[in-house]
């Protein structure tokens, strides 16, 4: 069976046999860049249509069903529409900052892709501080939002940006602590090693209660960090019309939109890697036959399956819950999530010291 890692290594060998090592690296980087952008474009389209369909079914509607089979090309059509629309820069805006912000949002979202293991031995950059890199880069996204909100010269945008700043900075903490739980259990910051450590069971199953608590906190915190409902205060529709991207239109708006979905994808992929074993198949103890069938499913399908399940959960939240108020949002973080995750990390340290985990 052809796997991603085999394709990658064959491409690598072919390039090595024809070019000098420096050129090989350059060509590979270009290939990776193009592949990443293509993946993002595709992911954006898929996630938008998925969100709309999930929302529609939960709201007893049909959802998009006109363009393409069952409306599956709707988001493509929307993208084309947004591409040809005029991108207006408001007269009072800080033009440079205003036009820069959507690209920063996009670039930070793309940077997060680097350490992800999409399939077995298929990773762009397996750096040894992968987890640290993820937490560090993901907090950059607040800069884009603040920039967009401030430079728009619109009071709604400003309010939205300020809300989002407070929100992302606070939720960084508990998201980081939830990730630390797994780091403590694994003893490594390298994402490939974390995946490898789950060969005999995913952390959510063998990590006892602390891993479960950390998982729940992680999901809540990343929902907040990506500005998704019920934590979408930055764009709170009924309060601030569209929040920080009120003034954006056309492709600049689409980039923000895309960045939001890419962020959702990357944080869900990280969640899947840390807690649900990344590309590791699902195994049950000694059921050899069952485990064999599970092994037969390609690792990339496992990875994307888990990621999309988490994305679905986050969408599920969005279409069920009302929005929190800004003070309640901060209450939730500082009074509930942070103390619990601090307590949790002590608990997990005890478990790790006594080697109670599998």
């Amino acid at each position, binding site marked *: 069976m052809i796997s991603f890692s085999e394709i990658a290594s064959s491409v690598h060998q072919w390039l090595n046999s024809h070019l000098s090592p420096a050129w090989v690296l350059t060509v590979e980087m270009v290939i990776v860049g193009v592949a990443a952008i293509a993946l993002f474009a595709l992911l954006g389209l898929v996630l938008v249509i998925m969100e709309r369909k999930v929302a529609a079914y939960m709201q007893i509607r049909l959802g998009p069903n006109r363009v393409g089979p069952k409306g599956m090309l709707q988001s493509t059509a929307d993208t084309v529409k947004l591409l040809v629309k005029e991108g207006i820069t408001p007269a009072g805006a800080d033009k440079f900052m205003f036009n820069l912000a959507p690209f920063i949002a996009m670039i930070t979202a793309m940077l997060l892709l680097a350490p992800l293991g999409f399939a077995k031995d298929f990773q762009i950059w397996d750096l040894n501080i992968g987890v640290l890199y993820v937490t560090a880069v993901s907090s950059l996204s607040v800069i884009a939002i603040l920039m967009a909100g401030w430079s728009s010269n619109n009071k709604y945008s400003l*309010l939205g940006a300020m809300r989002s700043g407070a929100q992302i900075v606070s939720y960084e903490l508990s998201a980081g602590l939830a990730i630390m739980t797994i780091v403590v259990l694994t003893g490594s910051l390298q994402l490939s090693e974390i995946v490898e450590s789950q060969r005999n069971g995913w952390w959510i199953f063998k990590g006892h209660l602390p891993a479960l608590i950390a998982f729940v906190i992680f999901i809540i915190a990343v929902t907040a960090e990506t500005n998704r409902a019920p934590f979408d205060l930055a764009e*709170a529709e009924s309060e601030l*019309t569209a929040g920080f991207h009120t003034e954006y239109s056309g492709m600049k708006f689409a980039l923000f939109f895309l960045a939001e979905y890419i962020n959702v994808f990357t944080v869900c992929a990280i969640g899947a890697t840390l807690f649900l074993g990344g590309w590791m198949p699902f195994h049950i103890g000694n059921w050899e036959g069952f485990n064999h069938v599970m092994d037969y499913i390609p690792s990339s399908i496992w990875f994307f399956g888990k990621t999309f399940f988490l994305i679905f959960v986050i969408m599920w939240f969005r279409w069920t819950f009302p929005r929190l108020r800004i003070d309640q949002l901060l209450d939730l973080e500082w009074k509930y999530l942070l103390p619990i995750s601090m307590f949790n990390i002590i608990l997990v340290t005890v478990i790790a010291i006594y080697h109670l985990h599998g």
Partner: protein
Amino acid sequence: MYSTTEHIGVNELGDMIINVGPQHPATHGVLHLVITLNGETVKKVEPHLGYIHRSIEKMCESLSYRQFIYSTSRMDYLSSHINNHGCALAVEKGLQVEIPARAEVIRVLMGELTRVASHILWWGALAMDIGAFTPFFHAFREREMINEIMEETCGARLTMNYMVPGGVMFDLHPNFHKRVKALLQQFKDKLDEYDELVTYNTIFINRTKGVGFISAEDAISYGMSGPSARASGVSCDIRKIYPYGMYDKVQFDEVLLQEGDTYARYLVRMQEIRQSLSIIEQLIDNIPEGDFQAKTKAVLKLPKGEYYSRVETARGEFGVYIVSEGGMTPYRIKFRSPGFSNLSALDHMTRGSKIGDLVATMGSLDLVIPDIDR
């Protein structure tokens, strides 16, 4: 109309001034609020009205007593039938006509259906204000059933114009009974679902409890009425205190809560849906036979004098004040709309709260803008 600092956007104290509306998702129409903000905290709310003012009162001065009723449907379009009822009552007071029992029952039935439809839509809209989108679509499912009943019997879905002085325009449609029964059954199943989705949700409770508080004295002083006032413990249900139509012959409770906050207003309306359904349940099997319209003259002339009728719409007390000089048209009509008074209390209720609270409070008042502007 505007203060000079408004164009700058910041006042002398450094507070930010924001225009919410006339086009804004939270105002459900063309309401324009100028709010003064200190960070996230609301310091002052000032409504600017008139974006949909059609001067219905002036228009009615040139319409006959048969004709003016239709225009009141366009005021509070969500409880148009009850508005029409109020107008018909005022005209009938002047004409001294006896309304057939069947017409009375039909009027009350339709009125309660309208109330349920209005409350259901409000439920969805409030949930949407607070950030939950799904309830809005679920609300439309039940509302659609009521609209279909209206369409079948009255001939229109929203602005029915089913009321004529002396009764109603048509008899009930043969399917009416069956459809209302189906509706009652549907609500039995679905009202609990509403509770699951919204009422008991922690986020919803946190967003609404203690938000937009108004005391009973203030509610009376601001002239509030309807569910918004009853949530503060003000007994003001016109159906109970000054019964009209059939309301003195049916069993229902006036829902009163003491908390006076957004959650109480929410609960009052949810309870009122159940009360209205019970009224419908009592009446649907006991519709008396007979005429649906009393005989009236082709040209109606009210004797010289003043006539005031009060009805309870989904939003509160609706009053029709007719001054007649004895002619074919009213000399002066004043519509006392519930939304206008309820809106005047908004500033008092939201001072010192957050923007999110302002939106929640505004949603809980159930404002319909054409009703405010008239």
